C-alpha cells in the first residue's frame, strides 16, 4: 500500500505557466488509480494526453485526487472500460420487430370498389388470398393472376401469401391490412412503396413507377 503522496504544488504553482501540463499528468498517472485516470481521460501516452487536456482540467483533477484520495493501491485495478462492456456486438440481437419510424403519410391510396364483410380483417402474419390486376399509370397491364375465362378462374388459385411480413411490396402489405374479406379495392401505390428507383424491367415496370392494382381479398387464414 503506497503511502499517501504529498502535495507538491500550491494552487498558484499549478496554474502558473511555468508548470508544464506534462508534469501534472505524469504525477497523476504515477499516483492515481486506473479508474480515476479513465474517468478523467488521463490514460495513455503523456504526449497525447497533454494535447487533448486543458490546464484547468488538470488542476481540477489534481485537486480532486487529493480530495477523494483515490491513490494507487486503494482500489482493485479493473481492466474493462465501460465502452467495451457496452458494445457487445457478438451477442445476437433478438428478432425485434421494430416498429417503423414515423415516416409521414402512407404512400398509397385505396378506394373501395366492392364492399367486404367489414368484419374479417387480416392481421399481420395471416395468410391471405387475392385476385389482382396490376396496371401502370398509362393503363398497361403488367401483371394479373385472373385467367381469361370464368371457367378457368374456377380452376385456378388466387395468390396466397403471409400479409404484413414484408413478402410483398409495402403498398400491398399496408393496403391489405385495411381490407375485409370479400372486398375489392383499387389501390394506387407510389413508387417508394412499390419498386422504387429500380423498377422491375423484366415485368415491364419502369423506374419510379406508380402502380395501380385492383385487388380482391378472397380469403383469410
Amino acid at each position, binding site marked *: 500500500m503506497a503511502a499517501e503522496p504529498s502535495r507538491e504544488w500550491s494552487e498558484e504553482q499549478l496554474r502558473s505557466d511555468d508548470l*508544464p501540463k506534462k508534469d501534472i499528468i505524469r504525477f497523476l498517472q504515477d499516483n492515481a488509480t486506473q479508474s480515476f485516470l479513465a474517468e478523467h481521460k488521463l490514460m495513455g*501516452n503523456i504526449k*497525447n494526453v497533454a*494535447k487533448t487536456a486543458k490546464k484547468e482540467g488538470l488542476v481540477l483533477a489534481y485537486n480532486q485526487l487529493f480530495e477523494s484520495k483515490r491513490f494507487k493501491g486503494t482500489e482493485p485495478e479493473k481492466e474493462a472500460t465501460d465502452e467495451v462492456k457496452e458494445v457487445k456486438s457478438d451477442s445476437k440481437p433478438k428478432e425485434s420487430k421494430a416498429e417503423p419510424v414515423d415516416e409521414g403519410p402512407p404512400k398509397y391510396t385505396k378506394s373501395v370498389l366492392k364492399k367486404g364483410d367489414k368484419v374479417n380483417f387480416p392481421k399481420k402474419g395471416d395468410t391471405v388470398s387475392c385476385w389482382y390486376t396490376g396496371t401502370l399509370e398509362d393503363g398497361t397491364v403488367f401483371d394479373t393472376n385472373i385467367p381469361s375465362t370464368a371457367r378457368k378462374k374456377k380452376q385456378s388459385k388466387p395468390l396466397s401469401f403471409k400479409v404484413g411480413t*414484408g413478402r410483398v411490396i409495402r403498398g400491398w402489405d399496408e393496403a391489405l391490412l385495411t381490407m375485409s374479406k370479400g372486398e375489392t379495392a383499387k389501390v394506387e401505390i407510389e413508387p417508394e412503396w412499390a*419498386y422504387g428507383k429500380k423498377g*422491375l424491367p423484366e415485368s415491364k415496370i419502369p423506374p419510379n413507377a406508380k402502380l395501380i*392494382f385492383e385487388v380482391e381479398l378472397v380469403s383469410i387464414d
Partner: protein
Amino acid sequence: MTLSHLKDIVRRCQAVQDDNFKPEDYELFQIAGREVVEQGGSAQLLEVIKDEKNKNIVRAMGWSLLGPLVKVLIEKEEESLPHCLAIFTHILEVCSPKELLVGLLEQVEDAHPDSITDTVILLLQPLQKVLLKLGSKKASSVGMALATVLSQVARLPVPYTAAQEDEDAFGLCRCCAALLAFVEPFVQEVRLSLGKGGLQDDELRTELLKFCMKCLKEPLMEANLKEDPDSSQKFPLRRFASEILLILSSIREALPSLLFHHLLKRKEEPGFLEEDVRYPRESLACLAYLLFVEHIGSESFPAVFSPVFVLQCNMEYIDLLLSRKEESRLQKGLDLYEKSLVRLEDNSLPVMLLELKTFLSVPQNLVNVMTLCPIQNLRTRALSVFQLSIDKFDMEAKYKFFRCMLKTSSHAGVEGYVIKNIRNQIDFALKPGNGNPWFLGIHLLPLLRLALSLPQGPETDLLQGLDRIMESLNLLRYLLLRDKESENETGIWTELYRIEDSFMKPLRLGLNMSRAHYEAELKSVRESRKLRAREAKAGGPVCTVTVGGEKLPNMTPEMQLQVLQSALNTFDMIEIVLARIEEITEVKPNV
C-alpha cells in the same frame, strides 16, 4: 439353317393350346429369332411374323426380338433395314404393352455410349405409343420410362458455346427436342384432367413434375443459357428451358410456390425422400436462375413480391451454387446474386438478415471463389459482387459484417479489402449530416481495434500479411490526417496509445526482425555461391519442389537474391508509411 430352326420352333408352338407356352419356348424363339436377324434373314423372318397362323406366338413372344431388331435399326444395315423396320412396327402393334415397355426400356438402358442419341431418338416414339396404350394406369410406367431415358441422356456431354449447341455433335439438343415431343400427350392429359377439376396430387402430374425437376438439373444446370441477341443462332437449350417452364405451368405448379418452397414450408412432405424428389434444391436453383437472370418464364411470375424477400429466398440457391466448383454453377450463382442485389436500394438491407445462416455462408463462399477459383474472370466477378452486397447492407449490418469478416477470415487480401471498406465508411460518416453510431460513435473504436492490429504480434509474417498491413496503415494514417486532434471525432487520438502498443510497436519490432533475417540470408547467399556450386555437383541440394508431377528446376543463386531483395523492398514500403504515421503523432511544441 437358322431359319428352319426357327420355323421348327414356331411350328411346335402352334400346337400349344391357349398360349400355354413354356419358358423354354420363349427362350428358343428368342435365340433363334436373333440368329436369323443377325444372319441377315430378316426378310424371311418378316414373313414368319406376319403369318396369320403365328399370330398368337408373335403376340406372346414377339417382344423378345426387340434387341436384335433395334441393333439393326441403329446400325442402319441397309439390306435388313426395311424388313426389320416392318417387323418392329408390327410387333409394336400386336404385342402386350407391358412387355413391350420392359423390352424397349431394356434397349434404352443397354444402349452403347456412342449410340445413346440414336437409340433415344429411335425409341421415344415407340415408347410413347406403348405407354398411351396403358390407359389410366400409365403414371408409374411413364415415370419409369422418363427416368430411364433421362439417365442415358445425362451421359451426353452438354454443349457450352453457342457454336457447340448448333453443331450438337453428341446429340443432346436433339434428344431434348425429342423428349419434349414425347411428354406432350401426357402433359395434355394432365392439363385436361386438372381442367375438369381433377386431383392436384395425380400420380401422372407428379411424374411430370419429377421429369421437369430432373431436366432442370441435367442438362440445364450444366448448360450455358445466356442469350446473345445479336447472334442468329437458335439456342436450343434455352428453348428447352422455356418449354420445361411451360410444362410446369400446364401442370399447375406455380413458380412462386416452387421457388419459395423451402423458405415457407412448415411441415415436411409425407415421406422424407419425396421432398428431395419433388423439390430438389439444385433444380430449384436452376429455376431461380432461369427466372431472375435469364427472365425465362417471368411473364407468369407475379410482380408483387418485395425485392428483399426475393433475395432472401434466393440466398439458399446462391449458397448452393457458390459452394460448387464447376464454372457452370459458379457463373449462375454469381449472376443470380448480382441480379437479386441490383434490385435493391443501397443501404437498405437490415441487420436482422445477418442472423440467417445463408447471409453469412454466401459471403464465405464468395471469398473462397475470390481467393481459390482458378478461373480469373470468376474471381474478379466474385469480388465485384462481394462489394455490391456490402453496399446494400445498412450501416449496422455493414458494421457487423466487417467485424465478422475480420474475425473469421484467414486471407490477408480479403481483410485488406474489408479494412478499405471500413475506411470508406468512416470517411462517409465524417461528412456533415452522415454521422451514425456505427462508424463514428461508441461502436467505432472496437472495430478500429480489430482493424488496426497485428494478429500474431511481432512474429506476424509481414510478407504474407502485406495486403492487410498496408490497408491498416493507410487507415491509421487517414484517421490521423482527417480527424483533427482537437476534434477527435473518431476517438483515434485518445486511442492512439493503445494502438501504439498493440500495432505500431510490434510492427516496428517485426520489421526490424524480418529485415535483419533477410539481410543475413542475402549475405549468406552471396557468400556461399561458390559453396552451392560445389554442392550441386556433389550430391544435389537438400530439398526439391515438385508440382503436378514435375520437378521444378532449382532456384539459381541469382533468383534467390532477387526474392530476398524484393522482400527487403517490401519492408521498406511498410516502413515508409509507418514513418509517416510516426511523424504525424510526434510531439509538437506545447501550445
